[in-house]
C-alpha cells in the first residue's frame, strides 16, 4: 500500500496535483451548500421530550418576545395620538413578515376597539338610513295630509306628534354629523390611492399594447383597470357628495328647530291660517325629499363600508375615550402595556424556529423604523431573540477575524521554528484542507454551528502537524537520511 503510494507520488506527481486540484474545486462547490444552524436542534436532540414539548408550544403560541420599550412621562405622554400613529406604522411594516406570530401593543388594542366601533357604526348607518327614509315618507304623508285637511279639529294631536318626531330627528341628525365627517376623509384618501395604482397600470398597459401577442392580456388588464378607475371615481363622488352631508345635517337641524318653534307657537295660538299650513306642508315636503336624498347617500356609504379598514383615531379626545374608562382611569387592558406610568411596551412574538436571517431582518426593520420616526433615543429594542442574534452575529465576526489571525500567527511561527525550504508550504496545505473540510460539510449536509465555528483555529493548529511532519521528514531524508548517522 505504502509502496504503491510512494510510486504514485514519484511517477505521476503532476497528475496527482492536478487530480487534487479538481477534487478541491468540486469540494469548493460544496461550500455554497453549507448551512448555518443555530436553532434548538443544535442545542438538544430532537427526540427528547424537552425539544418536542417546546416545539409544540412554539407552533401553538409562538416563541419569546422582542420587546420595544417607549419611554414617556406619564400616561398623557405615552398614550398620544402621535405615538399610536408611530406604533401603527411600525406594526404595518412588520405585517409583511409571515414569521411573526402576533404583535401585541396598545395600538393593536386601539385598532381592535376601532374595529368594533366601526362594526357598530356600520349597523348604525344602515339603521339611520332606513330610519331617515321612514321619516321622509312620514313627513311627506304628513305634508300631504296638512295640505288637504287644513281645517281639521284634531290638528293639536297631529302637531304634537309632529313635534316629537321632529325632535327625535334632530337627535339623529346630530349623531350622523359626527360620524360622517370621519368617513368622508377616509374615502377621499382611498380613492386617491386607487387612482395612483391605476395610473401605473395604465403605463404598463401602454407598454404592453405595443406587443400584438399580448393582446388578450392587455384587454383583460384594461377591463380590470377601468373597473378600478370607475370604483375610485365612484368613491370620490361619494366623498364629494358627502362633503355637503355634515352641512346638510346642520342645516336640517336648524330648519327642524325652526319648525318646532313654529309648531309650538302655532299650538299656543291655536290660530291656524290655511296659507301657513300650506307653507308648512311645502317645507315639510322639501325636508322630506332632502332626507330621502340623505338616506340614499347613507345607504351608498354603507354598501361601500367594507372597503374601509378600521383606522386609528386622529383626535386625542377620541383616543382618550378608548384608553380611559368612565372614571378617568386607564383601562386595565391598556395598563398591562405600561410600567410605572413611565414605559409603554410593544411586543413582537415570533413563530417558533424562525431563521436567523429573518429574525435579523425583523429586528432591523424595527430599529430602522424607530430611527426614521426619530424615536431611537426614547425607545429600547431588546428581548431574548435580540440578545441571541447579537451573540450569533458577534461570534461569526469574531470567528472570521480569528481564522485570519491564526493564519497570521502561523506564518510567524513557521518562519521562526520551521527552518526548511518552502517553510510556509504547510500553511498553504492546511488552508486547502480547511476549505475542503467546509466543502465536505456542505456536501454531507452537516451544518455549521456556533461551536463548530471554533473548529477553524483548532483545525489549523492541529492539521498543520501532518504537513510539517511529512515535510520535515522528507527534508531530513533528502539531506542524507537518518540511517547515515
Amino acid at each position, binding site marked *: 500500500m*505504502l*509502496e504503491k503510494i510512494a510510486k504514485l*507520488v*514519484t511517477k505521476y506527481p503532476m497528475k496527482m*496535483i492536478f487530480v*487534487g486540484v479538481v477534487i478541491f474545486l468540486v469540494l469548493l462547490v460544496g461550500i455554497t451548500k453549507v448551512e448555518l*444552524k443555530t436553532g434548538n*436542534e443544535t*442545542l*438538544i436532540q430532537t427526540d427528547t421530550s424537552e425539544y418536542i*414539548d*417546546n416545539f*409544540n*408550544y412554539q407552533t*401553538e*403560541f409562538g*416563541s*419569546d418576545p422582542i*420587546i420595544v*420599550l417607549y419611554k414617556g412621562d406619564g400616561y398623557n405622554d405615552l398614550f398620544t395620538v402621535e405615538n399610536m400613529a408611530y406604533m401603527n406604522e411600525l406594526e404595518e411594516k412588520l405585517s409583511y413578515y409571515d414569521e411573526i406570530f*402576533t404583535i401585541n401593543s396598545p395600538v*393593536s*388594542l386601539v385598532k381592535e376597539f376601532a374595529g368594533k366601533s366601526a362594526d357598530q357604526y356600520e349597523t348604525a348607518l344602515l339603521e339611520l338610513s332606513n330610519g331617515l327614509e321612514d321619516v321622509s315618507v312620514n313627513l311627506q304623508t304628513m305634508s300631504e295630509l296638512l295640505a288637504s285637511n287644513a281645517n281639521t279639529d284634531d290638528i293639536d294631536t297631529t302637531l304634537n306628534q309632529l313635534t316629537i318626531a321632529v325632535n327625535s330627528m334632530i337627535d339623529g341628525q346630530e349623531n350622523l354629523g359626527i360620524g360622517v365627517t370621519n368617513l368622508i376623509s377616509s374615502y377621499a384618501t382611498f380613492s386617491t390611492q386607487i387612482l395612483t395604482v391605476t395610473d401605473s397600470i395604465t403605463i404598463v398597459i401602454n407598454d404592453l399594447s405595443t406587443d400584438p401577442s399580448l393582446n388578450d392580456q392587455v384587454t383583460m388588464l384594461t377591463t380590470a383597470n377601468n373597473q378600478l378607475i370607475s370604483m375610485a371615481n365612484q368613491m370620490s363622488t361619494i366623498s364629494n357628495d358627502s362633503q355637503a352631508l355634515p352641512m346638510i345635517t346642520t342645516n336640517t337641524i336648524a330648519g327642524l328647530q325652526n319648525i318646532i318653534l313654529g309648531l309650538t307657537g302655532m299650538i299656543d295660538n291655536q290660530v291656524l291660517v290655511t296659507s301657513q299650513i300650506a307653507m308648512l306642508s311645502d317645507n315639510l315636503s322639501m325636508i322630506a325629499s332632502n332626507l330621502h336624498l340623505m338616506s340614499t347617500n347613507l345607504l351608498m356609504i354603507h354598501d361601500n363600508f367594507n372597503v374601509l379598514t378600521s383606522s386609528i383615531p386622529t383626535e386625542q379626545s377620541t383616543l382618550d375615550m378608548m384608553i380611559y374608562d368612565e372614571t378617568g382611569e386607564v383601562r386595565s*387592558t391598556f395598563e398591562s402595556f405600561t*410600567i410605572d406610568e413611565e414605559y409603554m411596551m410593544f411586543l413582537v*412574538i415570533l413563530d417558533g424556529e424562525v431563521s436567523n436571517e429573518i429574525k435579523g431582518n425583523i429586528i432591523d426593520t424595527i430599529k430602522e423604523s424607530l430611527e426614521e420616526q426619530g424615536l431611537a433615543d426614547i425607545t429600547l429594542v*431588546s428581548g*431574548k431573540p*435580540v*440578545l441571541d442574534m447579537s*451573540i450569533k452575529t458577534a461570534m461569526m465576526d469574531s470567528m472570521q477575524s480569528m481564522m485570519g489571525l*491564526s493564519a497570521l500567527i*502561523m506564518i510567524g*511561527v513557521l518562519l521562526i*521554528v*520551521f527552518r526548511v*525550504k518552502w517553510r510556509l*508550504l*504547510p500553511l498553504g*496545505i*492546511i488552508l486547502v*484542507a*480547511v476549505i475542503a473540510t467546509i466543502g465536505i460539510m456542505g456536501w454531507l449536509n*452537516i451544518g455549521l*454551528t456556533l*461551536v463548530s465555528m*471554533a473548529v477553524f483555529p*483548532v*483545525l489549523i*493548529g*492541529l492539521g498543520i*502537524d501532518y*504537513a*510539517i*511532519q511529512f515535510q*520535515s*521528514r*522528507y527534508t531530513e531524508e*533528502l539531506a542524507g537520511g*537518518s540511517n547515515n548517522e
Partner: protein
Amino acid sequence: MNNKNNSKEAITKTIRKSAPAILTALIATALGLLSLYISPVPMIQDFGKMLTIGMIVSFIVALLILLPVLFVRDYFFHIENKKKKTKKSNKFENIMNKITKTVLKFKYIILVLAIGSAALGVYYDQKVGVETDIETFMPQDTQELLDIRELREIIGSTEQLSIVYSSYDIYTDDNLDWIVDITNNLQSEFPDEIIKVKSISSVLNQLTTEHLTPNLVTNLTKNLPAEQLKMLVNEDATKGVIIVSINDLESDELETFIENLKIYLDNSITNMDVTVTGQAVIDVEMITALTTGRYTITLVGMALVFIGLLIIYRNPLKAIIPLIPISLIVGWSGAIMYLYDLKYTPLTATLGAMIIGIGTEYTILIMERYFEEKQKTIYTNDAIVITLSKMGKPIIVSALTTIGGFSALVISDFEILSNFGIMTLVNISLALLSTIIVMPAVLSIQGSIVSLFHRKKV
C-alpha cells in the same frame, strides 16, 4: 542525476517510514475526538464530526498533495542543500540529548511525582465550578447585553417559562378552577423565582370579579382582542398556556426551580396534560448536558484511543504507553483550573477529549520512532535518547504551530472563546512537557519490564 534519485528515495522513505506513524497518530486523534459524538448536545457532536473530518482531510492533503509538490520542486528544479541548518539542529539535538539523559536518571521520581500530582489534580478538579450563565460568555460591553439588562431592570424579567395545559376542552368547570388556582397561587408558592403569572384567567379577572364558569368565559373571551387571546389559548380551546415570568437565574438554580415547579404541578389535581416548557428549559437542558457529561466523554475518549491502538499494534503494552503521559494531563489541567479559579464552560468541558486526541499524537510519534530506533540498538536508553533528540524538534514545532493556531482564540473578546483558548494552550503545553519528561521515563521503565520478560522467558 543524483538530485533526482535523492528526491525519489527521500519520498519513498518518508512515506514508508513516517506515513504509518502519522496515520496511527491520526487514528488516535480522530478516535479521541470521536468521543465528542456521545455528547447529548448536537452542536458538540457536529464539532466532533467536523474536527474528525478536518483531521482526515488534512492528512490526505498532506500525503497526496504536499509530497508531490515537494517532489516536483526537488526533482525538476535542482536546489542545493544547505549545511547551516544541520549545525543548528545539532545544537538543539544536544540540548534534547541532555534533557532526556537527566530525565532517564530520575525516571522513577519523575513518574511518581507526575502520577501523584495528576491524582491530586483529579481530586481538586471536582471542586472546579461550572459557568453556565450564557451572558457571561459574550463581550460584556455589547450594546444588546446592556440593553437587555436595562430592560430587565425596568420590567423585572425577560426570562419566561410556559406551563402548557391541554384537554379536549379547557373551558370546563374543573379545568377553569385549576387554571385559576395555579395562576393565583404559583407566585406565593415560589416567591423568590416568580415575578408575574399570566394566563387566560388573569386576563379575564381584569374584566370580572365573578367566579369563572364555562359560559362566562366563552362570553368574555369574545370581547378580548384576538391578538392577545392567541398568546394564551389556541383557537379550538384545546390548549392553553400559563406564562410565568421569572428572575434571571443561574442554570443550576433554574434547573432546581423547574424540577420543583414540575413536582408542584404533578401534585395539583387536574385531568389535563400539563408540561413545563420554554426556551429556558432547552437552555438548562443543554448546559447541564454539556457540563455533566465531561468525565464520561473523557473516559470514552481514552477507551476509544486504547482500543484503536490495540487493533493497530495488536499489543496491549504499545496501546497503553502513549496514553499514560496524556491521561495525566486531565488531572493537571483540573488542578490549574482550580488554582486560577477558572470555571468550566460548555467549550472547556470538551477539552478532555480534545487533549487526548491531540496529546496522543505526540506520544505516538515518539513511541513509533523509539521502536524504529530500538531495531538498531540493543540499549533501550540509547534508543530513547536518539528518539527524543531526533523527534524533539518536530514535536516542539508541531506543538508550537498548534499553539499558534489556538492562540488566536485567546485574543477573542468572547470570554467563552478566550477562556477555551487559554485552557487549550495550557493543555498543549502540558502535553508537550509530558511528552518530553514523562514519556522517556515511561518508555525506559517499559523497556526494562520487557527485557525482564525476555530474560525470564529465555
